[in-house]
């Protein structure tokens, strides 16, 4: 049993940490709401957002980001469920080799693959297309996603699959009716993580789709917007940054409960 003092001290530390974490966030929102120099508005204003939206072309880049993020999340989630099932439940023969291979994918720094990826995509003519961003990110999400699902499936009692096989289910039906529905919350948590990660990806976008505005993702166009044009108006750039971050924040708030319960599931059981 913790004493009152300990509880108070603990909360103070947490509040302090929360303030540090929230500070940049709050300050950028406040800045985005402040009238830019030369503006006629007084008090709080939304005109920075309107300016950023119209001048920065964010409507296109947000759609691009969404296309890339959803494609990556969908393909990775489906592939990870299938791979996790084969590796952890069906005890696929070469599983150790596959896990070792995936491990390489986990430990390799992402910067190390950029040059080979550039060469590959330029030789295949896929530079400056959605593929240049979608394919490598599926590949880089897959190791973690596969470990995640394999680990989740391995925690479930074997007797479920055994009972289902006696009930007349084949391997695919066991996945379809038992493992996939039971893994749903793990898949959702995983999808959230991959979505955050993919949405914020900048380096690959910068190198692999520099010349085609039509496919550029939001973080990239934010960077171009900030770097090339409006350095004199930090309030508009702040508004642009908020616009780019907004979908992720919204997604997080909507999925927060699921996300937390998914993360905690293994720990509490």
């Amino acid at each position, binding site marked *: 049993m913790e004493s009152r003092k300990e509880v108070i001290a603990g909360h103070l530390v947490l509040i302090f940490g929360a303030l540090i974490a929230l500070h940049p966030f709050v300050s950028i929102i406040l800045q985005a709401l402040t009238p830019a120099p030369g503006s006629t508005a007084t008090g709080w204003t939304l005109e920075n957002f309107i300016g950023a939206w119209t001048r920065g072309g964010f409507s296109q880049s947000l759609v691009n980001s969404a296309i890339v993020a959803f494609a990556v999340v969908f393909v990775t989630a489906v592939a990870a469920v299938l791979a996790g099932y084969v590796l952890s439940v069906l005890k696929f023969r070469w599983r150790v080799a596959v896990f070792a291979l995936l491990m390489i994918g986990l430990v390799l720094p992402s910067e190390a693959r950029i040059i080979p990826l550039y060469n590959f995509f330029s030789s295949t003519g896929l530079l400056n297309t959605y593929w240049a961003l979608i394919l490598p990110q599926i590949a880089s999400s897959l190791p973690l996603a596969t470990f995640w699902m394999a680990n989740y499936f391995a925690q479930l009692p074997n007797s479920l699959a055994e*009972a*289902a*096989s*006696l*009930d007349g*289910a084949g391997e695919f039906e066991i996945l379809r*009716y038992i493992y996939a*529905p*039971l893994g749903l919350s793990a898949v959702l948590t995983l999808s959230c993580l991959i979505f955050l990660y993919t949405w914020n990806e900048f380096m690959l976008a910068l190198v692999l789709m520099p010349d085609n505005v039509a496919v550029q993702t939001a973080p990239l166009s934010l960077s171009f917007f900030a770097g090339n044009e409006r350095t004199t108006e930090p309030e508009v750039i702040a508004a642009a940054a908020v616009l780019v971050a907004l979908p992720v924040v919204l997604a997080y708030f909507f999925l927060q409960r699921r996300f937390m319960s998914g993360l905690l599931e293994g720990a509490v059981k």
Partner: protein
Amino acid sequence: MASVEIRNLRKSYATTHVIKDVSIDVDDGQFVVLVGPSGCGKSTLLRMIAGLETISGGEVQIDGAVMNAVPPKERDIAMVFQNYALYPHMTVAENMGFSLKLKKVSKAEIRAKVERAADILSLSHLLDRRPKQLSGGQRQRVAMGRAIVRDPKVFLFDEPLSNLDAKLRVQMRTEIKALHQRLGSTMVYVTHDQIEALTMADKIVLMNDGRVEQMGPPLELYDRPANLFVASFIGSPSMNFFDGTIENGAFRTTSGVVLPLAQIPSGAEGRPLVYGIRPEHLQLGGAGGVAVEVAVIEPAGSETQLYGKLGTDDLVGVFRERLSARPGESVTVTPSSEQVHLFDKATGNRL
């Protein structure tokens, strides 16, 4: 319904031999109980019948067809697991109807079959609940319901009652037995509880260390145990054993007490033997009785248990009468000589 034949079955993990040459016949409609101490291979044997474990040697046949290479889903066997293995994301009705759904049976027919099974097991009011929202006993019933709905060739049970409290265990024991009588199906039931085995079985298979020690109707194992292991495993409290030899037509224990014998098997004289007598086959008093020094007396209402010493050996007695002797005092007990079991000390086998 079906018969199951197990022929010279073996199971090894690398160098450990878990099942060593086991042969068992289960007749159509029979209730066979596999019983034995923990780790003797009961679950392994059951899972080999179900097809959940590979077979290292020998054969499993169902209705005369060899099953060794047939996957579990084609064996038409239902199994009730110790932890029940209910599908946590499905309701009770969905759990019970799952096998029929896989067989593409129509929704109406599934509903009808599930309701009939739920009725037998008094689960009708729980059909829309999830397994999490059920008590242990209710889960156990759902697991049975899932088996009944399928109307399989063979039912397998792996210690289905071991997670229940004592009272519920006795109740479910009766229910399973009643279910067997009602369905008339072939059932193989694993337990490590000899009382469950004695009360439920048409035929007991007593296993030890991967082998069958004795197989037969319950009372045969009780009345004529084939060896010391069977004699000590079946019956509660366990049979009393006294080492000694036969001299001058009577049994003399190593501590010099003389115990009565009804008849002396030929060739028994002069070699080390074990004299076995069940606690319930001792009588208080009587001529030719022996003196027992009382250690503890446990009255249990309908009967009284006596723990004491016969010479240097421990002795347990169970009596209908009440006993007023105090610890340290001596009481006279007489083994009923018709109920004595004699075993060869060297081999452990019955004479």
